């Protein structure tokens, strides 16, 4: 898998819920705990809004790993965590079909003070990327990914 893409720095996208992971990330900051700077955290109300195509598209754009830090059972939105898990599972299927390592996508329940689990997720994803390399510059054709229902 190691390609010329190796010259660029890896990028990990983190979708973190405002009621969970995003605050967990802030808590890690308040404790001034170091982690790898290749991590880009975007706040989300609930991760259930992202269809499979979103993840696929992100990989195509050169995101090497994605961690969805949702609120799990602490979610204020009824039904949303289950939906998120469902979509992620379907995305795994699609990734397998297309030969993209499923370790690039992780779903983790992170609470507002889950500093250690937060750091662990980031460390693990970086270890995975060290092992399997960056996302290839050209992914298998994503025909369905564009318009497929999530």
């Amino acid at each position, binding site marked *: 898998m190691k390609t010329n893409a190796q010259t660029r720095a890896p990028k990990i996208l983190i979708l973190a819920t405002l009621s969970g992971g995003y605050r967990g990330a802030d808590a890690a900051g308040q404790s001034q705990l170091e982690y790898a700077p290749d991590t880009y955290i975007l706040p989300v109300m609930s991760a259930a809004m*992202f269809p499979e195509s979103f993840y696929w*598209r992100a990989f195509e754009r050169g995101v090497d790993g994605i961690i969805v830090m949702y609120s799990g059972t602490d979610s204020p939105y009824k039904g949303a965590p289950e939906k998120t898990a469902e979509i992620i599972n379907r995305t795994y299927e699609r990734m397998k079909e297309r030969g993209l390592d499923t370790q690039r996508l992780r779903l983790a329940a992170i609470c507002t003070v889950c500093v250690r689990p937060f750091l662990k997720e980031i460390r693990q994803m970086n270890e995975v990327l060290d092992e399997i390399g960056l996302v290839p510059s050209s992914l298998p054709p994503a025909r369905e990914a564009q318009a497929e229902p999530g």
Partner: protein
Amino acid sequence: MPDTTGEPVPAEKGQVQPQSASPDEEPRIGVYVCHCGDNIGDVVDCEQTAEALGKLGNVVVSRSYIFMCSDPGQKLITDDIKEKGVNRVVVGACSMFLHEQTFRQAVSRAGLNPYLYYHIGLREQDSWVHHECPEEATEKAIRLMSAGVAKARLMRPLEPVRLEAAKHALVIGGGVAGLRAALDMARRGLKVTLVEKTHFLGGRTAQWEHVFPTDEDARTLLRGLIEKVLAEPNITIHTGAEVVAAKGYVGDFQIRIRQQPRGVSDDFEAVEQAIAACPVEVPDEFDYGLTTRKAIYRPYEECTPAGVVIDWEHCTRCEKCLEFSNNGGIRLDDAPHEFEINVGAMVVATGFRPYEPPQGELGYGEFPEVITLPQLERILASDGPTGGRLEWNGHPIRNLAMIHCVGSRQIEGVHKPQPDGNVNDYCSRVCCTATLSAANQIREYFPDVNIFDVYEDIRTYGRGHEDYYLQASENRITFLRYVAEETPEGVKAQKGDQQPRLGRVKDHLTWGEEIELPVDLVVLAVGVMPSPVDDLVVVFKISPGHDRFLLEVHPKLRPVETAVTGIVLAGAAQGPMNIQESCAAAGAAASKVEGLLSQGRVELEPYVAQVDPERCQGTGECVRVCPQEDAIHLETFSVSGREVQRAVVTPANCNGCGVCVSACPNRAIDVQGWRLDDYEAMVDALTAEIPALEGVV
């Protein structure tokens, strides 16, 4: 079916006006990088960050400053809005939870819609966690903020969802919780309609004699509360009434109510003769079936309303009572009538019913000497079947056993399940203190009676409750303790015995001795079950929990709200509660309704789903997956003469969970303020070969 050719979605009350796909004005973005003293500045090169971002399209101003949150910092932003025509603002500073509101308020002061602001936490999520690699931290700051700029380009002004709210609340249930909630809301200035299913106010409290922890007379307590309610001009009460249909949402519910006629006019005088003439006799539910009553009856003296009423279910229309009915004082041909009211919110206070043991549980239904605690209360009541004397079937009681946890703390496989297959695995909370209160009362009035108290755990938890336990011990009440796995074995009569025996209690207080108690009355401290509210659950789309009590949104944080905004719970409808707890819950429920309605309008966050009518194909996927009730539905529209289905969001019922967004095959639905397009643009910015980075890192 509105004909909307070209403009498919009608802007009805409570709906969001769709914004045009791209706002007319060209985005003019102001970018501000805060040093936070050294906190960001020591690691992230803020000047370089600002400089790099200045090169991005649509960015008209890009600055860094030592403290953006300070007054001079905020002034930089407001001045740029006023003087440079900045119409989108992106700030990179400390956590959004600390200062997002500060900056939203600042842009608002400068005349910009507060939702045209985006906040990036550079301190907690960049400089404080990447001390050791300042170059990467600076690149990260630039990328994160360029993602913010990408989002800012797409941001649109948002308005909170504003709903007109009727300053009128409905209370369902006229027991202590309902009365208390009605009183609180009326005193606050809301108009209140209270409906009570039976023909009398006061609920279960009226059937009690003596209430803990004050040892008050329940009737007096109730009279005081009802008097206050009746004195409130804001309250309208309908007895014999129930809700049959409801639609709408917070601020604007339309409620259909059906009221049963009383059949007897208020000024009817020959009450006693009419009752005497009635040939029907049915078990009197007020005495928990210990006595009977007629089909024309009043539950007790001094009840409110004071008049008698006809029990339509049991009345045979024999017309014997009509003999005494001058001028139509009694009308057997009265029909129920229905009417509609419009309320902004409602309080469900439908209360509880005592657990009814199945035939044979501890001898109940087999031996007349086995009764329930509510029945004992009626026996002890001065207006009860024995006039307050402790006697049963004509015999004075000498030995009495009280058994706790009957119908509570049940174990699957051990106890007989309810018709729905569940056992009552919960604690009923009120029975321990109520039992000991009754025991002490008996000890006081009938000192010769031996009392055995058979329990698993004594739960006299409340303020003043433990005193009943202490007093009971001092009163020489004999305690026997069983363990859950070895519940007392039923009551049986032995050959030649005049009286039943409470058989086999393995008492763990006396070294596991097995004891048989010769008793002449066994009192089962039965648990609490919710009043049957299946109809309301359907009408209001609220849910019962596993224990069949009505379910709150969050048992800790929002203990009186239901999943439906504008419908709140009070009292034992939600779970076992005593009078004090019911009144507190009612106050909390009233408070929530007052918060919603007292301003005459409800404001909800604008983060709700919004359909793009151009893209919607009416597949109904969103409707199918939506976890909220009535948040989205399909409507038929006529577009250029053709009938089409389109999804329509009811913002009042949408919480913005986004489940519909991922489900839509046509990308026709989004959560306002958090759109999928925004996120894709942000990912693009995070991964792009941004020219802004050249020569910087």
